[in-house]
């Protein structure tokens, strides 16, 4: 620490220490003073002056619903991991630990809102009514996603990091141009999901700049799970991510990403801001990736287990369960029923996966254009003929 009186400009390379810059960032397991929370890790419902009213309507039934969502999503996630280990999927991207961040946000969106996911948003997909089996094709390598993005109002998964921020911004600008922003009942907004690693991408920066310049109705929903594969957050930013929004000229909020109620409330607020013309908004859901980046990753090579031990204490599902039991008197039979449901779902997920046929050789032609060009048609028939030549050979 330099004393103010004796302060002289120092060598810029030695200027602020990491500790100075990073206080309040990763390394604390708390999100800092500005973290919005409505449900503590111990399952206590707490109030928040600014956002609490956005979840006032959530009672026992709603909370049970979110609990069910999170348990089912986690169960599917674990089954996906197992299927990869059994050679049934090429890769799986686990969401373990991020259930609340995804279910809270997903349940905050109305059917009119449009959502752009990255590739980990199985929980958001669930909230959009997409059957988990629809995700399997991507990870089994048989298709690029088999839901209708227009109908589900949920774009296909984007693998390129941060790229969907451009798509989302453009879509939101379109919503604005088409007059879908305002006080009317059919107002809508866009929500874009990405991770902390994506914030270092140019695409995200461009998206922020354009969204701000055009007052685009887009909620940038950053799930800060602390790790961009093996790179910890403090190597990517000098300020907490939500504070970056200020530089672009729109509000940023840090919410406890393991608190489904806070995520719900803040996202509801943010989407409403956007629908009524006050967009864009940045939400930083402060959470933790409890599993590997993907099934190809081994986090034990770059992070310590005691970090995980800390975050286990903030488990997003457990705190809802505790709250249901303590404050709403929910009995064990409810939890058993959800458990049974999740096992059923996982069994269906597994059975579907194992039975998935390999796509035929015509698939690469048939799904590209609505109508094949003559050239592609010729290529397709030539290719199929070539394939057929192996029959019986």
């Amino acid at each position: 620490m330099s004393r103010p009186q004796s302060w002289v400009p120092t060598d810029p390379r030695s200027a602020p220490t990491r500790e100075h810059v990073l206080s309040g960032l990763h390394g604390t397991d708390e999100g800092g003073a500005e973290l919005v929370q409505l449900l503590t890790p111990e399952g206590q419902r707490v109030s928040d002056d600014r956002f609490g009213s956005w979840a006032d309507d959530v009672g026992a039934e709603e909370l049970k619903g979110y609990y069910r969502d999170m348990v089912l999503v986690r169960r599917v996630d674990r089954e996906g991991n197992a299927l990869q280990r059994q050679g049934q999927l090429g890769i799986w991207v686990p969401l373990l630990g991020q259930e609340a961040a995804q279910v809270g946000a997903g349940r905050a969106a109305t059917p009119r809102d449009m959502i752009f996911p990255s590739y980990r948003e199985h929980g958001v997909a669930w909230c959009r009514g997409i059957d988990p089996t629809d995700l399997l094709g991507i990870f089994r390598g048989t298709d690029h996603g088999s839901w209708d993005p227009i109908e589900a109002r949920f774009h296909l998964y984007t693998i390129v990091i941060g790229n969907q921020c451009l798509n989302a911004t453009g879509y939101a600008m379109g919503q604005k141009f088409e007059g879908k922003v305002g006080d009317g009942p059919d107002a809508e907004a866009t929500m874009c999901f990405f991770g902390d690693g994506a914030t270092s991408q140019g695409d995200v920066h461009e998206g922020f700049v354009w969204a701000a310049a055009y007052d685009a109705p887009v909620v940038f929903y950053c799930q800060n799970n602390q790790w961009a594969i093996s790179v910890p957050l403090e190597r990517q930013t000098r300020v907490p991510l939500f504070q970056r929004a200020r530089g672009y000229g729109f509000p940023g909020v840090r919410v406890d990403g393991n608190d489904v109620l806070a995520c719900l409330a803040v996202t509801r607020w943010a989407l409403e801001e956007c629908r009524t013309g006050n967009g864009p908004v940045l939400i930083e859901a402060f959470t933790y990736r409890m599993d590997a980046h993907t099934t190809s990753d081994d986090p034990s090579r770059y992070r310590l287990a005691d970090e995980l031990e800390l975050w286990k204490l903030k488990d997003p599902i457990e705190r809802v369960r505790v709250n249901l039991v303590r404050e709403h008197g929910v009995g064990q039979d409810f939890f058993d029923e959800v458990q049974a449901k999740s096992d059923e779902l996982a069994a269906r997920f597994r059975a579907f996966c194992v039975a998935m046929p390999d796509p035929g050789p015509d698939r690469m032609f048939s799904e590209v254009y609505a109508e094949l060009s003559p050239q592609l048609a010729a290529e397709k028939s030539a290719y199929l003929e070539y394939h057929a030549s192996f029959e019986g050979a």
Partner: protein
Amino acid sequence: MSVPEIFRMPDVGEGLTEAEIVAWQVAPGDPVAVNQILVEIETAKAVVELPSPFAGTVHELLAEPGATVQVGEPIIAIRTAEGGTPEPTPVSESPAESKGALIGEAGADGRIATLVGYGPRQGAARRRPRKGVPGAAAAVAEPEVAPVVAGEEAAAQVGPAAAAATAPDLDDGRPAGPESLVPLAKPPVRKLAKDLGVDLRALAGSGPGGVITRDDVRAAASAQAAGAAGAAGAAGAAGATGAAGATAAPAAEPVAVPAAAAPESVGGVRREPIRGVRRATAAAMVQSAFTAPHVTEFLSVDVTETMALRDRLRASRRFADVKLTPLAFVAKAVCLAARRTPAVNASWDEPAGEIVYYDHVQLGIAAATPRGLLVPKIRDADRLDLHGLAAALGALTETARAGKTAPSDLVGGTITITNVGVFGVDTGTPILNPGEAAILAVGSIKPAPWVVDGELTVRTVCQLALSFDHRLVDGEQGSRFLADVGALLEDPATAMLW
């Protein structure tokens, strides 16, 4: 019964071609459920566990621990109930899973996340109760299994040949082992080494930053016969974990040795990859030694009275169910003395600019285990009486020796005891467990000449050595603490006064 179902080695990491069997968690005849962990494998990218795709009974293990198996090759045969497609009933609770990994625990029954359990497995978490690994291996070795390496004997025969066969591939620069094993050499040099049959991992590079040069390779080639290229362990490091003795990737060591590994001695030098607990310990020790200014003080103590007390208590019914060791008395003394000198039960929080004092003693006990040095903790040790401490010590050492220490037991210590006396040495200068303010080394307890009332006599004596972090513990406090511990051991009755 019909033909058993075959589970083939999957590609668990986008384009891998092979993986090494680290340890089986099931043996022939065991019932298995869908998603129960069958085996731990190590790929170029990670150590991972494979869950069973079938429910049924293990018919045969088709690959030995240590064997490198190509993706797509059968590794296990499982007889399913119908011999057909298994009922896809996801079973979550694998026996191995029931301990540790509670991360995804969703309900009271804790089933959700234990299904696969990769989540909780990071770092320290990657250690599990091993279900009779040696037993399992032996069980396989005896019957059939002709095609695969059977037991150590066969491994010894097959070892060199198999290793030699794989060597060129490894030298190719493909990440057949973990990254830490990939030698520092440019692709043309790798090519040269491959052509000349030189194992780059056996070379120390003379280039800048230890890079292996062409000349190094040529020199090595001329020095050794072509076929002698040491094909050192394809067995990989189980993942460099980071710091804190807490972290560990236990598995590889014992099992990896028989088949592939056994690094050959080249020119009288044996090189072994740094991994697992070794690496974690090294990181923790370096971090501690270079951040906390250590001071060590010594004290010789006449523990005759304590030993006599121990003998009396041992004979009592109350202590019949525990093993009452001198260490239990030391632990008790440390807890009592720490109450008088809170500074030793504290830590230095540099980022916060604060010293953290702990209300309770989370007592670390350094333990030599098959996996290396681990420091499991006795929680709230200051709340335990002597019997409780003895019981906790017994449970803790047994768990640690069995390699079953839960990761949560390895973190969050506040002060540590290292019992170097069990190795027959008198004393040492212990290095602090990172984050803690003090560590007490207990030397061997043995008869020694001692002066009592001006007379030379033989007493039972033990040496204590206390290292403390001088940032927060001064000589006065450290000395007082050590003297207190010594006084309690010299005359345990003084504990009455505390």
